[in-house]
């Protein structure tokens, strides 16, 4: 597919261009991603109006050649990834100049571009092995990007490397099992070939390996241990990019595996499997929030908050066999969380960029010193808490309705409890920024002028999106999108019990 090719090519172009002119790298990245983004919107339109796109790589027919399949869900995730990457790329220009040596810039941007390539690849592919290849591309670049920041990041990156490779191995073993049983790796074929083999132990084992492998990458609790360190010590730009896009893509892979490869019949044929997923998610939601409360480092707090928010999405996935609202909630939250967390990490990056502040206790009076970044942070935080009419509210609403429809009342309580926990750890920051201490002393000191526009604008766009999306999800506009996704995934609208 064109997107991948362009992206891959430009990654190498950047490296080459870097030899000639260090400044050009960033612009090439931005230009490429802009192009990809515009293209992905066309794809989404096409998919919504015409139908699924199939593309046979090299013209080989599916069982032998690699097939790219784009349906509504992919297209949607693709738009999310590329939009976030674009904003982060714009933001990165000034921020990276400060955090990373100029010498490393070309490498940085080519890695950046490769990561985006890998993520897009995972999204569009319709082949299990090809997914693995892109998974590795994305992961390896992510290890490198995290390590760019220096010493402590190296250790974090190393942890991530080990855990990540373990996850990839698990995934690969799953692929091997499936291939040995069915003789194909094409998702569409697997979907047709697998049903008679559901009782086969190898298939069952493969499923478990897949879920664990992808869960490690998506830092589903309790497999999240690599993630807080990685997010904390990585350059802010990288944290923002990985936090908002990479985990989403992994979740996408999980949804794809569950729905398109194994189908719901498989899940439902094992009593309690969907509930097990839900309970893991519930644990993630609560544990992530509680860990977040204990953190003093802002980025670390955000990292744990991500663990908790991923739980929301997984909960939606787990509830989806019982209620369509579960899937709605999961899909909505993929976008919402990408936007909110992106915004929060960009704001956190801005605080570091200008004031060098990491510890929440030092945030006093920040609201006056950096009004735009603080405002963006506040809006995104309010959205995370789920106060209407912000975006987080809509996801929460869908998930609550899903739990009710599934008659799983404990999850309603967990979602609401998590709201309060989110409130505790985010409000602490907001309080510090705006209200604690009398800031007359620092009044009128520095102006925000020193925060470059290229950093402010992406943050403000994301913050505005938090509100706009919140209203968007509440209207009936996203319904066609949801219906398309449901029909693509083979769930015939309505409850499938």
């Amino acid at each position, binding site marked *: 597919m064109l997107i991948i090719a362009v992206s891959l090519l430009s990654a190498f172009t950047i490296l080459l261009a870097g030899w000639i002119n260090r400044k050009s790298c960033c612009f090439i990245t931005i230009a490429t991603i802009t192009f990809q983004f515009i293209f992905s919107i066309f794809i989404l339109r096409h998919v919504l109006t015409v139908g699924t796109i199939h593309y046979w790589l090299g013209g080989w027919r599916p069982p032998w050649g690699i097939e790219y399949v784009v349906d509504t869900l992919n297209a949607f995730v693709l738009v999310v990834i590329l939009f976030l990457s674009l904003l982060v790329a714009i933001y990165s220009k000034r921020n990276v100049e400060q955090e990373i040596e100029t010498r490393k810039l070309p490498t940085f941007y080519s890695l950046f571009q490769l990561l985006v390539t890998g993520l897009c690849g995972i999204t569009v592919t319709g082949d299990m092995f090809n997914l693995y290849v892109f998974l590795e591309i994305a992961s390896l670049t992510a290890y490198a990007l995290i390590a760019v920041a220096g010493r402590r990041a190296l250790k974090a990156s190393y942890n991530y490397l080990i855990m990540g490779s373990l996850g990839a191995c698990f995934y690969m073993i799953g692929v091997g099992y499936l291939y040995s049983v069915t003789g194909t790796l094409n998702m569409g074929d697997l979907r047709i070939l697998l049903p008679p083999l559901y009782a086969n132990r190898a298939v069952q084992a493969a499923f478990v390996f897949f879920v664990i492998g992808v869960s490690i990458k998506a830092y589903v609790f309790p497999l999240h241990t690599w993630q807080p360190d990685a997010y904390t010590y990585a350059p802010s730009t990288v944290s923002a990019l990985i936090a908002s896009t990479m985990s989403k893509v992994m979740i996408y892979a999980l949804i794809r595996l569950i729905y398109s490869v194994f189908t719901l019949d498989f899940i439902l044929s094992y009593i309690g499997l969907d509930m097990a997923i839900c309970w893991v998610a519930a644990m993630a939601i609560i544990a992530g929030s509680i860990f977040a409360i204990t953190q003093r480092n802002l980025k670390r707090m955000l990292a744990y908050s991500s663990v908790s928010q991923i739980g929301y999405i997984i909960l939606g996935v787990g509830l989806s066999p019982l209620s369509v609202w579960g899937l709605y909630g999961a899909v909505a939250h993929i976008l919402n969380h990408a936007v909110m967390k992106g915004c929060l990490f960009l704001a956190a990056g801005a605080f570091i960029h200008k004031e060098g502040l990491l510890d929440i206790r030092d945030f006093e009076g920040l609201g006056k010193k950096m009004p735009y970044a603080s405002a963006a942070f506040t809006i995104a935080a309010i959205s995370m808490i789920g106060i209407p009419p912000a975006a987080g509210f809509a996801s929460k609403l869908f998930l*609550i309705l899903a739990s009710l429809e599934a008659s799983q009342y404990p999850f309603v309580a967990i979602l609401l409890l998590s709201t309060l926990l989110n409130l505790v750890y985010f409000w602490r920051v907001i309080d510090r920024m705006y209200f604690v201490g009398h800031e007359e002393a620092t009044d009128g000191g520095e102006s925000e002028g020193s925060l470059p526009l290229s950093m402010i604008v992406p943050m403000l766009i994301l913050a505005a999106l938090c509100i706009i999306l919140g209203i968007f999800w509440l209207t009936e506009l996203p319904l066609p999108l949801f219906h398309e996704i449901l029909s693509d995934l083979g769930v015939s609208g309505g409850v499938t019990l």
Partner: protein
Amino acid sequence: MELMTPLFAILCPAIAAPLILLSKRHPNVREGWTLLASIATFSFVLSMAPKIVGGEVIECFFFQTIFENIYFGFKVDAFGLIFAITSSSLWILVSLYSIGYMRALNEHAQTRFYFYFAWAIFGAIGVALSANLLTFYVFFEILTVSTYPLVIHDQSPEAISAGHKYFAYLLTGGCFFLFAIMMTYYLTGTTDLIPGGIAALGSASRTILIVMFFCFLLAFMKAAWMPFHSWLPTAMIAPTPVSALLHAVAVVKAGVFGIVRIVCYVYGVDLMHELGLWLVLAGIAAFTMLVGSFFAIAQDNLKRRLAYSTISQLSYIILGAAFLTSNGIKGAMLHIPFHGFMKITLFMCAGAIMVATGKKNISEMAGIGKQIPVTMLAFSITALGMCGIPPVCGFISKIYLCFGAWTLDRYGLIFLAVILISSLLDVIYFFPIIYTAFFRELPKGERSGTGEGKIKEAPIFMVVPLTITAIFSIIFFIHPNTLFIFDLVKTAIVDLGFGGI
């Protein structure tokens, strides 16, 4: 054009808020926006009244939500309009008052104050006009969040911990509310507020209905019913205009407004009777009335005493609704604006006393009636009204509540006794203030104040609004239909299916 009136009404504060922020360097312009917006809001709200009294319902829907059968939008009915009129009319007066108060005390962060004040009004009007529970919830939460910066205006550690307490209570309540709303939607497929209740709710199981009702009650911790009241006295640390409008009118009234909505417009009178929930609600209200009054007697800080008085008075409204009789609900609905006007006068007086004399405690107030006669006169009039003594409007709402209790089949006498005892307690905690102010001599040290040290009335911006509200408290007694209040109540009662009066 008519259809859009609710939209215009709510847009005024929303437009004013950014304008206030933009003109932060020009205090006069900034306050100008506030006043302009408040007057505009009030005129829009009031302009709907004749139509509503005529029996029409103004509907204004923005979009169909993703949930089937739920439209995001407004439906103006008589009861909602009563609340909207109360809060929008008082916003004008409190804006005037806060100009005087904030400038006299030279408070910091005044722009922030006016900014969030406008958003709080936005939330309150939205709550009043909402067509269904989902819309209600959205504005309810906006109201909660936008008042936080007002509560902690001082930014002292105590103020911030008060703010945390405020949030802990109200947002927890919000969680229960959300659960109850989604439950309602799940059970009935609708969240519309329908006079007489959602019919489909009757077929749900009794246990679920009872659990849901308690969730709804917990949702309205804003109504400060005991034992979930303690955020209110704590939040009194806010500047007086905030206490006046938000904790006497908008926030707590949104709470009781919500309870009446749930009782009469979601569960409906029949269902409440059938489940026996009215007795539970009435019991809670009676308990709060009495205990709140006892707490009030024990307070020396004037604002805290007023806060406990608010807690007690709010339960009159809950009690009236719990009676489920025409007179009881009428009394409850009348008490919303009447208590609003009276309590706001008392709070504004408390603020004026503080600005003029610097005194916060009742025990220090000996003889101030001579120093600031206008303020104390207004205070005395409305305090009498609170106790239910004519010729002040509190008498009317209380008499209806008494009628409501009298016509009950069971326990009527008990509740009648509770109302009377509570009124007596009101006298006990208000009378000493009046007595101290007018009939006790000034302490010796202060009597010889000459020239500069002499204590005068508070600034004109503060005294005028409180005089106006005090006068209104009397006008409401003489002519209860001022601002269409009485007609609206009658319309609301007819809507609820009680027939004429």
